[in-house]
């Protein structure tokens, strides 16, 4: 182990796992530096939970290597890995009290009784459950159970904490507050969190970096901003909220702009794969679409006429569903700033797709 490697560093090299005919994890390579809040994001069945279980040691990889702090984990069974897991169902032992649940791991290490009690009290306090030690898990609310599961893992001071959709069973409001709490705990303990979720908002709020997975492969690894602002593939763009995906013909010239053809209209894009030629997918976020009255001059760059098909009230914004002259349907967000509504159903408009917001995408991640 090189001294430069910070504790809690995970390295996955060409990791694969098959279940029968299904390839759950398909040659994943990842580097997670120590102390990072790293999320695996993807729809169900994308292999994110299997990846987590491989790191924990519950599954044996078919190929590839897992290194923890530079050490190969192939021969290390789960109970000897310095990695702890928070299960989706919490898996709290129902016949033990909260304190005994938290003390379970410390007792396996045969630590002195007095020290165990002190540590249990400390960690219960840090998840704001002091005084709950004598209760049974079944006497706690979902959010409290979740925090016991967290305490039970954190008390062992692991270098890596694996969390499998830990907030999945909680209601929306509780999720929000626990998201912030989790992030605060991660910073307080300074350990690596590997967080599995299918909730893009959750991943964006908490993570330092996110890996978006699909079909057992990684589509993109980047910071939340980058994932959201600069999705690398069609899948990523689609998975992270409504994106306006359209088929266009690209005619990239290799400079800083890519010329596109969408129906009868010429477009210019400044983002994404600017060298693309031929069939291409272009994307623009709804909040970046500009809607202008039909009466304005339509000769500017990237302007397409269209008609408002529907106006959906979202509270903080109006969502305009616009049918373009090319036949494509486009979503546009209009922030609700208190001004009277400008657009109504059936109204003709001009849509401006700013070149610096228009991206040209790959279908699949480029081969490394």
């Amino acid at each position: 182990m090189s001294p430069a490697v910070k504790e809690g560093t995970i390295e996955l090299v060409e990791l694969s796992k098959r279940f029968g005919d299904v390839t759950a994890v398909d040659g994943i390579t990842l580097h997670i530096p120590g102390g990072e809040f790293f999320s695996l994001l993807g729809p169900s069945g994308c292999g994110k939970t299997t990846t987590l279980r491989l790191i924990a040691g519950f599954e044996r990889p078919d190929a590839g290597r897992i290194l923890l702090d530079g050490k190969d984990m192939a021969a290390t069974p789960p109970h000897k890995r310095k990695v702890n897991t928070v299960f989706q169902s919490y898996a709290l032992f129902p016949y033990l009290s909260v304190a005994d649940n938290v003390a379970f791991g410390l007792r396996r290490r045969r630590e002195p009784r007095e020290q165990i009690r002190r540590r249990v009290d400390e960690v219960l306090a840090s998840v704001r459950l002091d005084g709950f030690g004598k209760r049974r898990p079944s006497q706690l609310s979902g959010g409290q159970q979740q925090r016991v599961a967290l305490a039970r893992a954190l008390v062992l001071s692991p270098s890596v904490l694996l969390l499998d959709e830990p907030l999945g069973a909680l209601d929306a409001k509780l999720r929000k507050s626990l998201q912030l709490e989790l992030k605060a705990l991660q910073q307080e303990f300074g350990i690596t969190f590997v967080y599995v979720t299918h909730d893009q908002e959750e991943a964006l709020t908490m993570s330092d970096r996110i890996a978006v997975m699909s079909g057992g492969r990684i589509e993109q690894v980047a910071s939340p901003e980058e994932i959201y602002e600069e999705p690398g593939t069609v899948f990523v763009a689609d998975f992270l909220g409504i994106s306006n995906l359209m088929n266009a013909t690209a005619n990239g010239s290799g400079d800083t702009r890519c010329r596109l053809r969408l129906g009868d209209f010429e477009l210019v894009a400044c983002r994404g794969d600017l060298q693309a030629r031929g069939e291409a997918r272009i994307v623009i976020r709804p909040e970046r679409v500009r809607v202008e009255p039909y009466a304005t001059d339509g000769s500017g760059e990237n302007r397409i006429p269209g008609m408002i098909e529907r106006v959906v009230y979202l509270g903080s914004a109006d969502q305009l569903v616009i049918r373009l002259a090319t036949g494509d349907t486009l979503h546009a967000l209009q922030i609700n700033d208190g001004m009277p509504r400008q657009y109504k159903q059936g109204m003709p408009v001009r849509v401006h797709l700013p070149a610096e917001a228009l991206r040209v995408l790959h279908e699949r991640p480029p081969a490394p």
Partner: protein
Amino acid sequence: MRRLRDWWANPWGKPRFLVVVTWAYIVWSIAPVLIAVLFSFNKGRSRSVWQGFSTRWYWSDPTQSVLHDPTLRGALEQSIKLATFDMLIAVPLGVALAIGLTRWRGYGSRPVNLLMLFPLVTPEIVMAVSLLLVFVTLYHIQLGTTAQTLGQVTFSISYVVLIVRGRLLSIGREYEEAANDLGASPFAAIRLVLMPLLAPAILASFIVVFALSIDDFVVTDYLSSDASTQTVPIRIYSSVRGTTTPALNALASLMMVTTLLAITAALLLYRRLSARERRPEQAAAVGDIATLEV
């Protein structure tokens, strides 16, 4: 007339018809048992004409009471002895087998899982004859307590596997994985986590095996050696054609009381066990006991 019809047909009223049927069934099924118990306290030798109350057939009669007639007392002792052996052997083996079978993935696991049900569906007489055959000619096991115990264990295990496997499947692997994750070796995880979670199923298994063993006639009779290894059912059956006294009723009553006591004790213990957890899936294990009980 109309009021009567309304009373009977009132859709919001109690389901009276069902109540009547239920009570009729209960009376019908319990009455013979109560009558048999009643006559165990008869003063005279008759098992059908009431001649006054006495405990003579239990212990007062110096030669013919259950306490003093060596064949009756021996039968009760043999029944309880076999039930104890059966429980002590079949339950641990069955639990281990159930754990093994749920873990085993791959070729052979399906047929073996199915074969476990074999003793449940084989007619008992077939089982008894074939056990007698292999014990005597192949394994040279002496008939009597040893053979009887082996025979009872053979079919009891299936029930244990069935009960425990159901519970195992509802528990899932996650608790054990959590224990592994927290530093418990695989063996420690079974001991510290799986066993407490399985406790209700294990308890249910004990009750079922006890009841199976006490009740069993065919296998136990085939594998018995002489009068000394007769159990209560065999003793009662074989004396039916001879002169009978209410001592047989007393013997049967004692067996019934023993079974009831065992079940009550187990249910109380079960309640204490499950009070610790109170999770909805535990309700299933109460069902295990209720449905499999004889």
